[in-house]
């Protein structure tokens, strides 16, 4: 089984030209999943663009606490990095400058001419994410983003797909990891609102306090946010509140798959059991890139 190829197929079947790989925390196998999808795209000759959007606790950029892993990229791949992170050798072709500035310098679009290891560096703002996704789309057929959950709004309402990664590094127990990924997927998969049904449209985010107030008021109307990233309820109480309310969005997101990383430095879960539990909890095709298996 070629996991990267299967995930790519799932995304392409939904018409996705952009794939965001997001995680429930750090070291949950996002980059490994991205590498597998990228390798599958490169093997098919798909002109691919890569970008990374790190945030604290979700993989860091140059200038942050921990460096992002560098990726081995094939010729003709385009990617976004910072002027200060572009390796001197092998030389890459700089095909454009971005308006965004990162701690490692101005962001730029580069095209691989000689295969090698390259570092992806992303923009610090949501508008910057949109700019680089659009910029890479103009340069290729497929964009894969090592993403951050709070930046997937750039995909909302567009033909993008999300892959959610979870792993043993981000939770104390398997049950917690499964709960966390299920909550994240439930939040990202909020359905589009029904324009014919009564609704309360929120201009900003749906917070814990607002959700609690709606529950207390036994609110039955649709509570509509701009996109799923505007739902910022946290924890299990937040998840319960969401289950009691009819939360909908104006610009939905598409989650196509989950990946698992069952082994971490500090703990490990039984690989098959973990993958099957995630598949059951999320109702998504769930892949273990490390084991080369799919649970569904």
């Amino acid at each position, binding site marked *: 089984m070629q996991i990267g190829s299967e995930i790519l197929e799932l995304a392409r079947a939904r018409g996705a030209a952009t794939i965001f790989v997001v995680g429930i925390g750090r070291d949950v196998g996002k980059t490994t999943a991205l590498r597998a999808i990228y390798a599958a795209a490169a093997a098919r000759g798909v002109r691919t663009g890569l970008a990374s959007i790190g945030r604290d606790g979700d993989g860091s950029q140059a200038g942050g606490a921990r460096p992002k892993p560098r990726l081995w990229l094939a010729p003709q791949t385009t990617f976004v990095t910072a002027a200060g992170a572009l390796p001197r050798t*092998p030389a*890459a072709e700089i095909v454009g400058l971005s308006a965004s500035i990162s701690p490692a310098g101005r962001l730029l679009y580069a095209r691989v001419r*000689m295969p090698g290891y390259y570092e992806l560096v992303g923009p610090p703002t949501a508008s910057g994410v949109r700019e680089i996704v659009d910029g890479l789309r103009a340069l290729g057929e497929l964009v894969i983003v090592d993403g951050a959950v709070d930046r997937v709004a750039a995909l909302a309402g567009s033909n993008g797909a999300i892959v959610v990664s979870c792993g043993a590094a981000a939770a104390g127990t398997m049950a917690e990891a499964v709960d966390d990924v299920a909550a994240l997927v439930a939040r990202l998969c909020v359905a589009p609102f029904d324009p014919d049904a009564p609704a309360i449209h929120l201009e900003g985010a749906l917070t814990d306090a607002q959700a609690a107030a709606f529950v207390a008021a036994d609110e039955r109307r649709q509570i509509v946010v701009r996109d799923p990233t505007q739902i910022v309820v946290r924890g299990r109480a937040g998840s319960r509140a969401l289950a009691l309310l009819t939360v909908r969005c104006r610009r939905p997101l598409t989650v196509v798959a989950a990946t698992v990383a069952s082994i971490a430095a500090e703990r490990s879960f039984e690989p098959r059991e973990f993958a099957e539990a995630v598949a059951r909890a999320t109702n998504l095709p769930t892949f273990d890139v490390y*084991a080369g298996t799919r649970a569904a």
Partner: protein
Amino acid sequence: MNVHDLLDASSAHVVGFDWLARAVAPVSPYGERVFEALRPFGPGEESAAQARCDAIARCEAAMPPDRLDAIRGLLADLPDVVGALARASMGDALDDAALLELRRFCATIERIESLTAEYPERPVIFNDAIAAVGVALAPAGRDASAFYLADAFDAKLAAARALLGREQAELDAARGRESALAARALGRETIESDEFIVMRADLRGSLPAGVRAIREAPTYVLCALEYGEATLAALARRDAAATAVAEAEARVRARLSALVRERAARLDAAARGLGELDVLVAAGRYAQRYACVAPSLDAGGVLAFEGARFLPLEDELAAAGRQFVPLDLELRDAAVLTGPNMGGKSVLLQTCGFLALACALGLPVPAERARCALFDRIAWLGLGRDASIGGLLSSFAREVVELKAILERAAPRLLILVDEFARTTTPHEGKALSIALLERLRERRAVGMLATHLSGIAAAAGVRHFAVRGLRGIPHRPAVSEVAQALAALAEAMDYTIEEVGPDARPRADAIALTELLGLDGDFVAAAHRALSQ
């Protein structure tokens, strides 16, 4: 642009400095540096200021708006190469991002050169260094907005890369063979990660050759591939080839950086020229957009204009679908201005300040004709200033403190614009203080205008008296009582013309009529009329 010596922050705000600075702001970092360093011209610098005004006027006349916009578009997209030039001057080898910036810099200058060809007075920008660096970086590709350290830069680079390509392919093949063998032995189609999991249930016997265990658990083994001798030998050859490429690339960058270093002074000069052009083009576009003319700058103390406009208000009115009524004035010394409420007294003062400020900055002015002195201080007193001084002071005390500061400052050529000075004290004493102020201004030979509703000040101070003509008739109150409609009706009825009147002419106020127009109820207005007649 630093105008602190010419006017304080509050006066600058009232006379529209912020608006003007935005209207003439350059778009490139080169222009911003020149703009930041600009200082107002003062008395004695009339020739230089006139030359700048005339140059801007010739620029806007020589180049149509779309040409100036095209130049500004190019300038706005330009990266700043000053840092790269500094690094090259200090002996650094420039990286590819810096070389791209330099390439775009040179290419943009060539394009600007062609766009400004019909304007002979343009700042000198293009020079031999721009040409040389542009040519040296041309092998980077046809598109000047991209950069690649291409094989065309150096024959040895091409050879080194070709070898690296072959060695990499051999390494990939060797590694691929070993990975495929391991995958097959494990019953998998492929291995997609550096570390991978083998389930014990799937493992028949021990791990195959080339696979080592990293971590073992009861149900699985975490593994990694171990490369054989053939792959390790291919890896060594690939690494040697990669080193040769790195050295060849570094040589090309060093050579290009040395070329930049040798021409850094000329490139810097081009960057400065680009900044001057940016500032010139911004001012030229402002002059076009707002139909400005070069004033005649006068060594005497005069501020005279015909058809002048206060652009910040003109913009605001245009947004509301209304037009600014242009103003005429000839002011040579201290004078009094009277007129009805909402007759435009404050706007006339602001227009005076705006034009005097534009002249001091060497900019064309929004008027049909203008003659203006250069002042070493423009001061605003009275209504309109913010309360930046003395939060504990009353408005009258604050005005007095501000007046004291204005009068104490040595300014041989002062323009002072006074809007209803001492309006918060008794009319009797307010009038006396206004007269004293005008007498002091006359003694100092200052140019100034004092707007007031009090009568008899001009005659008592022995100064000229200007007045706004005022309402032609009392406009009808609009059927729907909305302020915007009332203002439109008022503007229609108001004659904003400024004319010199006799010193004793009584000021008009029309205040009661205005209260009715602005929506106060009829009983209130009738009571006011009764009180006035008693």
